[in-house]
């Protein structure tokens, strides 16, 4: 999956998480909030040349690096760890997930910031590629015009 698709996926998962928390289904909520956070980190990491892979702890490492490089204003790694463990515990015991000192609205807001950062980065890439397409198109027009001039 491309980083652009990952950024879109992050938003979709975030929307599902918000809806689940609103519907008082915290097990589904925490599952999708974790997915949203990870997708946002992977999107940003890939757009910025930071390595990630399938393992959850590597996404935590990527979150630390994204923060160190000022790509993300907060270090999302403790939130990733918290959500990963909370979704496993909640899925296993079916109990209300435990978020420690965090409230669900605080977690939603923190993750949404990362999702927005991924969307902004995606937008920049798309704008850049639009400009590149535009430049390519202009180049082709010039080339075509030059061809026209060839006797």
């Amino acid at each position, binding site marked *: 999956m491309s980083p652009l698709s990952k950024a879109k996926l992050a938003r979709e998962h975030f929307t599902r998480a918000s809806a689940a928390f609103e519907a008082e289904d915290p097990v589904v909520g925490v599952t999708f909030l974790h997915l949203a956070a990870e997708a946002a980190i992977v999107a940003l990491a890939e757009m910025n040349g930071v390595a990630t892979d399938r393992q959850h702890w590597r996404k*935590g490492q990527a979150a630390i690096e994204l923060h160190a490089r000022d790509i993300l204003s907060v270090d999302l790694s*403790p939130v990733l760890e918290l959500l990963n463990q909370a979704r496993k515990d909640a*899925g296993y015991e079916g109990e209300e997930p435990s978020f420690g000192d965090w409230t669900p609205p605080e977690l939603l807001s923190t993750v949404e910031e990362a999702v927005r950062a991924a969307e902004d980065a995606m937008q920049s890439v798309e704008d850049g590629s639009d400009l590149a397409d535009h430049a390519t198109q202009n180049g082709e027009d010039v080339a075509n015009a030059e061809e026209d001039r060839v006797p």
Partner: protein
Amino acid sequence: MTPTDLATKVSDDAVWSARLREDGLRAATLQTPSQRQATETILERSLALGAGAVALTGSTVRARRTVMSDLDLMIVGQRPGCGGVRQDVDVYATSAKAFWERLVAGDDYIQWTLRFGCILHDEGILHAASRHVAEHGLTPSAERKLIQADRGLRLARVVLESGDFDAAREQCRAALTTVARWLLIANGVFPLSRDELSGQLFMLGCSDLAAALRRLIHDVPSGEELRSGLQLGQQLVAAAA
């Protein structure tokens, strides 16, 4: 305490001490250096928080890790942070009260850890729990596992419907593993580690579930295969209900 009781207690304590020594050596042998480092870090952090017990558990202690295996630890006490740990770690942390409630209710994870886990630290609760299991002939509760299986299937279906197949594979793997464990427990078989479950299911005659689980562990099944796997799990669970 009668002389016989005293002799039994002394012998029981000696057996437990020997197990702890052996478990320490076994844990060291079964882990790679980076896994050992991760376990050591979690153990130190748990002890600093006053943990009553810490055990290494899961596929690592059965020497049956797969590419997606976490390093599983069970802690009786507060959950330590895993920041800076360079491994995927799954920490099952519980208070002493909840530990006993779950043990008595037939929680299979606790019984599994008592049976196969490497006990790294115990201030007496795991010893007492092991004695309790032996004295009462405690076995895992199929009813409890069925509830977990049903919940896991529901969650996996919701994630699958989102269209994120990478995430759905992880959820489906967890759900079908729980269905497999429930089925084995319900048939009087103690479930082993995840990668051993397919073999146990084949022996039980559940070859479809065995194949679906095996594929989820070792391959990359398509969305359609995930759907079929969940459907199979749901049929089995619905038949029991």
